[in-house]
């Protein structure tokens, strides 16, 4: 046996399973493992619900209504099932869950390395090492921002922020803001910053247009009723493509407003195409804006059509509450995305009008501490619905990991049940055939 090339610290303990991360997914798995009487520990770099505490902007509310905020053996019990949780409420919800299930969480423990060992894995942390037979990676899908290569060409006179650094408009100077990305995040930030009086330009590439409510119900109710959130990763045509689809343009607000590009145009936001380069201090935008908007309009209409068809087919005999309560547009009232006749193709970043660029270009998980041959040529984790390509290694909470809802809070329940079962079987086989891993 060769020794590990990575730093070794004194052994803190030996346990069957190490769960990395005490967010909702790691805690849901902890609950599952406890139910299966599997010995485990949950290592958390910061506090419970750490990213919700430290990596979100102040005004953010969940995009899913409270009735969807559920974890295994824990449903929403408050007075407002149709409301949207603020960040303090999310933190309270997850922290209470950790307490309620008595999860064995060690906070302030940062995992620095996971390597294979004779009998499983060795997990190095800033506070000692753990030996275990299985590892569940629940450290989140939003570790590192997706930045284009030309981000380095942003002139020094500008401030740049990622969606993780942004808190509120007051932290920006008074100049204009270029928001890059038209997912839920990009639209919410563009809206909030425009309301603060700063001129906002929004770069729009491929996006998913959505309504907050339709036929009197929240769109999440429809996605739930139609089974769209339960669609499985092994039942879609092109899982690689689907996993890259940006989050739908939604905002969770008490007035259940629909936030789309037309709403931003009315607020004075300037829409431009995808940011495709920065050359000589000038931002260059794609001329494909019209097509990206046409596609998003078509796909929204298709979703509404499928809701209409469902109502025609099952509406009258369904147990689902169909007497809508929220004011909504009808499908006919939904106007195509309005665009200027000639959207700008360039923007001077050096004339002082733009002060800040906010990258709302999404994130990818930070697995740099996973020292195992489990990545494809593009650096993506190789896994089959969360079962990573290494015995006893599992991942949680990634985009469309096992189902469309896998990255949602309520998506954890089904995933941890199935992956917990797989993990339990793996541990049993290991006991019965201890020599099996010798070749590893």
């Amino acid at each position, binding site marked *: 046996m060769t020794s590990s090339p990575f730093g070794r610290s004194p052994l803190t303990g030996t346990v069957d399973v190490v769960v990395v991360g005490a967010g909702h997914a790691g805690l849901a798995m902890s609950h599952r493992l406890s139910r299966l009487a599997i010995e485990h520990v949950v290592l958390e770099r910061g506090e419970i619900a750490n990213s919700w505490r430290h990596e979100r902007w102040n005004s953010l509310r969940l995009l899913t209504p409270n009735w969807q905020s559920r974890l295994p053996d824990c449903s929403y019990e408050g007075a407002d099932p149709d409301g949207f949780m603020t960040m303090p409420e999310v933190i309270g919800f997850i922290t209470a869950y950790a307490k309620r299930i008595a999860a064995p969480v060690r906070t302030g423990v940062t995992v620095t390395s996971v390597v294979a060992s004779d009998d499983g894995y060795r997990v190095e942390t800033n506070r000692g090492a753990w030996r275990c037979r299985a590892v569940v990676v629940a450290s989140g899908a939003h570790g590192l921002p997706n930045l284009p290569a030309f981000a380095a060409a942003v002139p020094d006179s500008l401030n740049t922020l990622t969606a993780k650094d942004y808190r509120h408009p007051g932290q920006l100077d008074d100049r204009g803001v270029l928001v890059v990305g038209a997912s839920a995040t990009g639209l919410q930030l563009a809206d909030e910053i425009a309301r603060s009086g700063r001129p906002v330009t929004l770069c729009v590439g491929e996006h998913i247009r959505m309504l907050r409510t339709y036929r009197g119900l929240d769109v999440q109710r429809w996605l739930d009723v139609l089974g769209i959130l339960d669609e499985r990763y092994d039942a879609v045509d092109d899982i690689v493509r689907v996993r890259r689809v940006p989050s739908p343009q939604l905002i969770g607000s008490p007035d259940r407003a629909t936030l789309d590009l037309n709403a931003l145009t009315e607020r004075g936001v300037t829409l431009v195409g995808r940011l495709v380069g920065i050359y000589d201090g000038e931002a260059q935008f794609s*001329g*494909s804006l019209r097509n990206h908007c046409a596609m998003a309009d*078509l796909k929204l209409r298709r979703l509404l059509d499928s809701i209409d068809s469902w109502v025609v087919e099952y509406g009258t005999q369904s147990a689902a509450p169909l007497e809508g309560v929220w004011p909504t547009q009808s499908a006919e009232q939904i106007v195509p995305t309005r665009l200027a006749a*000639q959207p700008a193709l360039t923007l001077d970043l050096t004339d002082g009008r733009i002060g800040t660029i906010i990258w709302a270009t999404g994130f990818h998980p930070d697995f740099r501490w996973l020292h195992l041959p489990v990545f494809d040529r593009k650096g993506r984790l190789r896994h089959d619905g969360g079962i990573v390509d290494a015995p006893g290694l599992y991942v949680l909470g990634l985009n469309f990991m096992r189902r469309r809802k896998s990255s949602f809070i309520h998506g954890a329940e089904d995933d941890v049940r199935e992956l917990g079962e797989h993990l339990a079987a793996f541990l049993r086989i290991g006991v019965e055939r201890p020599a099996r891993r010798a070749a590893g």
Partner: protein
Amino acid sequence: MSATATKVKVNNGVNVEALLGARQALTDVPEAAQFKWRATCQWVNGTHSRSTVQSFFGLGAEQSHKTEFSYEADHPEVFAAEDKGATPVEYVLVGLASCLTAGIAAVAQNRSIQLRSVKATLEGGMDLQGILGIDSDVRNGFDGIKIVFEIDADASREDIAALVAQSQKRSAVFDIVTNPTNVAVEIR
């Protein structure tokens, strides 16, 4: 019509199985996906030139069209030229139109939509004050391109719109025209 048309197989003349096979093969062997497209251009006289294409590189080897294709380019008589061929900017429109049209056929085949006719009409606007150096605020190239498709197919208007949108999303020339490209010019 209706008596015989129980199960018509869609045929737009596109071998989708081969395309999907190539997609899978090139996913597994990304090196083979590296292509080089080439053209050569010979000045004839005045603004008249003759370009040819024949060889290209791809699938890890030199490839060749079945024959050499040749294209005359010139400027029209209103530019005091002899009009021996289309103008270079018209070739850009030709490239864009044929790329999108090919894409429509392929996507339609993949979506089991039978095409009967597809016609694209293109117009690129240009302010000559750019290329003539009259106004430095005016760009040389098109100030916009308008494309109108007339499509007769066994599909709803919405499905046809989705077809056209998808062909833009997957089009090489649409990308070349709408996004910046680094161009390196050397002299030998």
